[in-house]
């Protein structure tokens, strides 16, 4: 568990450093579109992806999953390139911010339409089953708001019917953009939704690093063992706006106050030190290393050439009729 915890912790530190840098760049007017941070989500993202293997498993990060991307093994350079629209980036300026993936490595590129990626993950796992590849799992991430989308219901039902080895991580950060839980769903808890699909359910405090790590470990192991789809509700608060354009004044101050000492990164550092899995010096060194890597990656992505409309290949299909 110690090595998993270390891997996840480092991913959280890296993601926070990257997010902090992104926020500054956004405010300096250096980013073209929106900037979406994962403050409050880091433990969930990092823990859900820590138990996955790139190239074997499938990972579908959502909007606030930079920590998960780091834990999966994606360099922050990839994220930085996507935000800057670098020609060297995976999306080559054709798509931006959090919309990037490497399907060949097991990360499908997310689209903006909520819930749409769940069935794509299902298809990837279904294909692996048909190809006789076992022992792999998929982690698909959604939020409280996405549980209201029709595509989510269709996919979850299908995943349960096919008994696919998928962990669905529902991060309940209490607000879908500005809409609070009470206006989003009327069932007692989002965990009930998973039960309704016939999935094994788990729930954890997503600000509690060790609890989240253990929950994700168990859920991933269950799915890998063939115990069918797992539904994990991880509770937190979004400790920022929906995007950096949004000051989140709709989140009541008393709620913010209640979570003031529950910053997942601070909790994780405390827990790592308490477990004796990390010393103060090691923690400080991780902070420095991550800050340096973020700085290097952002500087490189900023320096790289942007796409050129004159030489852009404007083909939308790979095949063309012969003329």
């Amino acid at each position, binding site marked *: 568990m110690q090595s998993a915890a270390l891997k996840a912790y480092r991913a959280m530190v890296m993601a926070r450093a990257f997010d902090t840098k992104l926020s500054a760049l956004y405010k300096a007017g250096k980013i073209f579109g929106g900037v979406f941070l994962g403050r409050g989500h880091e433990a969930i993202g990092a823990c859900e992806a820590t138990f996955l293997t790139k190239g074997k498993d499938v990972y579908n990060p959502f909007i606030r999953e930079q920590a998960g991307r780091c834990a999966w093994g994606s360099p922050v350079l990839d994220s930085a390139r996507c935000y800057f629209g670098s020609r060297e980036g*995976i*999306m*080559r300026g*054709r*798509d931006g911010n959090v*919309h990037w*993936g490497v*399907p*060949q490595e097991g990360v*499908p*590129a997310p*689209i*903006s*339409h909520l819930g*749409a*990626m*769940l*069935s*794509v*993950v*299902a*298809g*990837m*796992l*279904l*294909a*692996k089953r*048909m*190809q006789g590849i076992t022992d792999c799992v998929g982690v698909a991430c959604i939020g409280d708001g996405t549980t209201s989308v*029709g*595509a989510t219901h*269709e*996919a979850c*039902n*299908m995943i349960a*019917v096919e008994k696919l080895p998928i962990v669905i991580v529902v991060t309940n950060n209490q607000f879908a953009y500005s809409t609070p839980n009470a206006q989003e769903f009327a069932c007692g808890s989002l965990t009930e939704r998973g039960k309704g699909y016939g999935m094994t359910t788990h729930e954890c405090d997503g600000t509690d690093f060790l609890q989240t790590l253990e929950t994700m470990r168990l859920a991933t192991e269950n799915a890998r063992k063939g115990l069918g789809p797992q539904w994990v509700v991880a509770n937190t608060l979004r400790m920022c706006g929906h995007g950096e354009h949004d000051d989140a004044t709709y989140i009541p101050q008393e709620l913010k106050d209640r979570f003031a000492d529950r910053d997942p990164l601070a909790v994780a550092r405390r827990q790592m030190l308490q477990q004796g899995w990390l010393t103060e010096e090691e923690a400080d060194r991780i902070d420095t290393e991550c800050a340096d890597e973020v700085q290097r990656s952002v500087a490189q992505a900023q320096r790289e050439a942007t796409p050129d409309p004159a030489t852009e290949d404007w*083909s*939308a*299909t*790979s*095949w*063309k*009729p*012969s*003329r």
Partner: protein
Amino acid sequence: MSVTYIDAIHQAMAELLAEDPTVFLYGEDIAGTFGGAFKATKGLAAQFPGRVLNAPIAEDAIMGTAIGAALAGMKPIVEMQFADFGTLAQNQLANNAAAHYYRTGVPVNVTLRMPCGGTPGGGPYHSQSVEALFAHYPGVHVLTPATVADAYYMLKQAVQIPDPVVFMEHKFLYRWLKADTWVEQDPLPIGKARIARPGEHASVVAFSAMVPEVLKAADELAATSGYNIEVVDLRSVKPLDTNTILASVARTGRLLVVSEDFPWGGVAAEVIARVASEGLHLLDAPPLRLTSKDTPIPYHPDLWRAHRPSAATITQAVRYLCSL
């Protein structure tokens, strides 16, 4: 011994499954002994165990699953029970599958089979022709076979195309359209329109089930008026073979486009826009279009027949066009 349009589709799928282990079929009610609402997949589940899969009634998830499977190296062929319900899969097809190649450089090899078009008594939700709706999005190919051989060859070719392909099967043609065989000496590639009947007085462009209607009208016109029309079968609405259309219009000087879909922004509008912008000088008369009416498709057979173009209304339209 004759074969039908749906026999050709069944045969193409059987061969695709036999030839390529990455091909599988996914859709509602297609597996078991049932074999689909129109029986296009009947017998294939037994013949190819584990490769013909029933899905829950969830068009969005069916399409999304097919996309995921394609990303993982498979070549899924999806069946929508009716093209009308394909609109529920459009989110996945348009926003996800069609956009995927441009965004990521990775094409999504899915083939979406959709029984389209009207039949007597089909009503508003089992009759629609949604080619234009799907063709609107960048990144897809939309095929519209009008012959038994095209149904066979184009489905086989569709699966070889690495991009999302929408394969529109006209359900009226399923058992009505017959031929001696689906085998053709020299099948045309996808992207080429076919001169279904050469002529000189007007070019009539059509696709899918409107092709046999136009051919019927051509016989009627030749017998009664001496007008000899050239019939262009588009075969695919995207890619749209503008060259063949323009060459035909250059020969005849007159254009009528017949399409079973709704008029607003439909396939006929696209064909006429292209001919007008690239070949206005070839026209001796304003280009005409004949489409279904701009109302939902009615249930009663008498209303339905009046709603869509028929040999009689096509004949009338050609006579008018040639009088201009």
